[in-house]
């Protein structure tokens, strides 16, 4: 069989497949986080309402998902009809004309209800391009029982120094209790998201107004060595390979005294089915260095968008409408309880008296409201984004720099070395990109 016949056969097959399918198939690329897995489990509700639409799920680990989705949209591969993307990608891709605007959602969709911070982050030129499935900021989650045993109390808005003291008091390595768990796994959406917020809260910034990298500043040095000291002295072993999910597992097993991470984690660590410490978790605002006006809160949304190359745009929008609607929230509440509803997307959720009873609802909203992507740092910056820099080069820069900081946490290099390497490679990449 020659290549040509094979190709003919391929196209013939594709043709018959197209004719045979009476239904529209929507291929959804999503991340394997808990809320998405839950959504996948509730597929039946959608298909019973829309029998003409068939859903195909591609669930991938976060880093893999990002690469696959970026590759697909940049090369116009058209493999997916619904993409799970974040606040970083949405404005950049929208600007390139790669996303379908979500302006014609159904009447009862109530786009005005979406939290203003999320709306702003997922729009380009005032037009919404991705609908938030859930939104998050970051906050401190801590073990109330361990704090009590140490005779300490967590302020509602702690400083980094107070966090350090608490971590020291709670650390009990004999019994595998580590004062603080933080992200160390390399990746722009993993350790760099966290480290960047730490830097912000120490008064540092990635670039100055002329797009010159600032990692050689004293603020960065202070922030990074503080982060490194925390993990070295009070962190779990192997912190350099821990990302969100690894830390979640550790916290659920009762091995972390504190964990500063995404607000969505609150529902997982307080869920008695999965968490051994569900009854004794407290929440506080993300810390800052005493006297610095910015806190280490980030702002992120996992959102659903339709790529411009999709051949099932309408069906894809129908799905997004379902997955990000108020009804979906109610559906999850009915099945799993209000605490497990995907948080941070809609104002009405936080006005719901049922939801207000949930322990972490208030702190989540406070954290989200404390974050402002358009003014992330103490000094002026030419970019948007708190825990990321909204330029196409960021994914490359962030991941490469992330690997240097990860090696630092692993003890392979000092904070100074990591920073000077990161400064060099960021400068390189920015030059290559023509800044």
């Amino acid at each position, binding site marked *: 069989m020659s*290549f040509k016949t094979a190709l003919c056969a391929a196209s013939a*097959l594709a043709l018959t497949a197209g004719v045979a399918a009476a239904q529209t198939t929507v*291929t959804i690329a999503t991340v394997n986080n*808990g809320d998405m897995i839950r959504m996948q489990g509730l597929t039946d509700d959608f298909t019973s309402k829309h029998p003409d639409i068939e859903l195909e*799920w591609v669930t991938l*680990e976060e880093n893999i998902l990002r690469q696959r989705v970026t590759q697909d949209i940049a090369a116009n*591969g058209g*493999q997916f009809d619904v993409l799970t993307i974040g606040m970083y990608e949405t404005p950049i891709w929208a600007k390139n004309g790669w996303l379908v605007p979500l302006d014609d959602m159904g009447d009862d969709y109530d786009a005005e209800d979406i939290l203003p911070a999320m709306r702003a982050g997922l729009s380009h030129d005032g037009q919404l391009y991705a609908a938030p499935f859930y939104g998050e900021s970051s906050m401190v989650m801590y073990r109330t029982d361990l704090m009590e045993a140490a005779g300490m109390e967590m302020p509602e808005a702690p400083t980094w120094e107070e966090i350090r003291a608490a971590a020291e008091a709670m650390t009990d390595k004999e019994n595998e209790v580590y004062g603080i768990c933080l992200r160390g796994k390399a990746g722009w959406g993993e350790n760099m998201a966290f480290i960047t917020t730490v830097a912000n809260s120490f008064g540092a910034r990635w670039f100055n107004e002329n797009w010159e990298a600032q990692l050689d500043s004293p603020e960065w040095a202070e922030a990074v060595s503080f982060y490194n000291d925390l993990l070295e002295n009070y962190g779990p072993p192997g912190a350099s390979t821990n990302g969100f999910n*690894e830390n979640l597992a550790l916290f659920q097993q009762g091995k972390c005294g504190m964990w500063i991470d995404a607000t969505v984690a609150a529902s*997982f660590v307080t869920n008695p089915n999965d968490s051994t410490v569900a009854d004794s978790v407290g929440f506080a605002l993300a810390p800052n260095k005493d006297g610095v006006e910015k806190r280490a809160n980030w702002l992120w949304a996992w959102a659903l968008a339709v790529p411009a190359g999709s051949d099932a745009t309408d069906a894809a929008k129908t799905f997004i409408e379902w997955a990000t609607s108020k009804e979906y929230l109610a559906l999850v509440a009915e099945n799993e309880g209000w605490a497990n509803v995907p948080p941070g997307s809609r104002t009405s959720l936080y006005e719901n008296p049922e939801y207000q009873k949930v322990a972490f609802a208030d702190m989540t909203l406070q954290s989200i409201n404390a974050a402002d992507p358009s003014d992330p740092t103490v000094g002026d910056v030419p970019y948007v984004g708190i825990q990321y820099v909204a330029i196409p080069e960021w994914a490359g820069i962030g991941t490469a720099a992330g690997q240097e900081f990860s090696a630092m946490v692993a003890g392979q290099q000092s904070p100074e070395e990591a920073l000077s390497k990161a400064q060099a490679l960021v400068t390189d990449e920015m030059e290559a990109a023509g800044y």
Partner: protein
Amino acid sequence: MARAVTTRRKTINSLAAWTVGLLIFFPILWTILTSFKTEATAIADPPVFLFFDWTLENYSVVQERSDYMRFLWNSIIIAGGSTLLGILIAVPAAWSMAFVPSRRTKDILLWMLSTKMLPAVGVLYPIYLLFIQLGLLDTRIGLTIVLMLINLPIIVWMLYTYFREIPGEILEAARMDGAGLREEILFVLTPMAIPGIASTVLLNIILAWNEAFWTLNLTAAKAAPLTAFIASYSSPEGLFYAKLSAASTMAIAPILILGWFSQKQLVRGLTFGAVK
């Protein structure tokens, strides 16, 4: 006396060999065992080996989350299809190289093998673009063709080494008896080549089944094989060892069973016919 020594030596050797064998096999055994534990037992300290409450829950959770059968079916089609296609193309080539060698035969063989060294990442982007143009992205046909092409040099090489072992006199005898080229291939060569072809097929099914670069990068949903199935479990969501183990067991079981049953042919195939 002599016999006692032999028995003693055999015992010691057996003991050593079994220890080594079990040590090498242990990671797989541990994975299979863990797949029957609850998540809490899976991380118990000290680890539990055999005495725990066996459960099938993980398998049902994994099946519920991802449609195992579809991934399995894709794997079977892609691995089987690419091997079949590869054999169809490679048999004539290997036959002519083995029986009608020319000055350039060896160069061609080595050149073919050298295409195997082409780093896949170096050509990923072009292939991706070509696939989009040809509409082959996320199709089983596209993946079958790619896997066939990356394994073709190995198939040709293996078949060549097998065919070369078939004594030329037999062919000459057949020709004397008036057999044409077609009869020669059909009735003389084929029966003698069957074991070699079988080994080649087996090895290539395994290589294609386990291929994890192209299968991950060129598929999304429709054509995704088991390598993609496992990729959705590649980071923990809370406690996950038992679920990961169940998914892993499901991904490797078919090929493990196939491999064990066809051990003899495989040993032959694994040596690529290069070592007698």
